[in-house]
């Protein structure tokens, strides 16, 4: 019986008071308690996100987009540089094959130094992105 009454009161408060028994019901103690509860449940909590939350989040997404663009630009530049080296070697081979062969021999002789320089350059670029550029 009590459960049915509770259900009825909750439904009435969800839909708004309905005549003709509205006045009678509104004086009921259970109804008043539920009404107070419904009013309290609508109140927003005191805590909230920081006022600049949206700006911070947008800046974070922009920074990630910039990183991707920078990486894409870097890879494109690396590809272009590599293509340039290939074209340079082919051109040199046409002009003076022996000189081109000597150049390749020197490159392979000191390959570890060239690989070390390239890897160092890549590490510096990576650390620059991660540590030097300010985190937002």
């Amino acid at each position, binding site marked *: 019986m009590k*459960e049915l009454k*509770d*259900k009825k009161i*909750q439904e009435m408060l969800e839909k708004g008071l309905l005549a003709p028994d509205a006045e009678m019901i509104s004086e009921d103690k*259970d109804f008043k*308690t*539920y009404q*107070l*509860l*419904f009013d*309290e*449940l*609508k*109140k*927003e*909590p005191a*805590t*909230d*996100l*920081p006022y600049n*939350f*949206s*700006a911070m*989040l*947008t800046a*974070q*997404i*922009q920074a990630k987009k910039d990183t991707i663009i920078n990486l894409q630009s870097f890879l494109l530049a690396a590809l272009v540089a590599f293509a340039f080296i290939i074209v340079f070697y082919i051109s040199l081979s046409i002009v003076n094959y022996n000189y081109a062969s000597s150049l390749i021999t020197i490159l392979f002789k000191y390959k570890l130094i060239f690989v070390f320089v390239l890897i160092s350059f890549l590490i510096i670029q990576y650390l620059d992105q991660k540590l030097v550029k300010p985190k937002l």
Partner: protein
Amino acid sequence: MFNENEVVSRIIEGDLRAFEQLVKQYQKLVFHVITRMMADTEDAKDICQEVFIKVYTNLKSFGFQSKLSTWIARIAYHTAINYLKKHKKITNVQYPDDLDQFHFTDENPEKTLIKKDLSAYINQLIEKMPVQYKTMLTLYHLNEFSYQEIEEITGMPEGTVKSYLYRARRLLKDKLEVYLKNEIL
């Protein structure tokens, strides 16, 4: 005036200022869902960020099948559930066996200080409730979603939503009666 269609189209085209507008519009909704479902609010800000990043990443697939608020609330709800599952704070989300048996335990004497502030007291009671009850109270009363929208957000049938909401309110009302009686005395 916030125009959903316009803002979503601009975000998909890459306009981050439109995304900032969207975040401002819905950050309270997301914050309320996340903080009510989490007992520990320290991670709430990070989880809210995670929700909006998911919104940004998946906006192309939105398709206007529902209201934008419902879609965002759904992402927030499921992100919170996954977080709680990952940290083993809940196991069976939708139909836990012991939900109908839930009752408030007696408070410690120290906590009776909170009773002086009705809002704080209600919030304290809600915090003690199972996550399903907290979710329904938040989505219905605080975020003003309809039963149908809550069904879309949580994946629970409308009958279950109504049942959880009814029981949660009844539990709170019983405690409130005792509180008001003590206040009068």
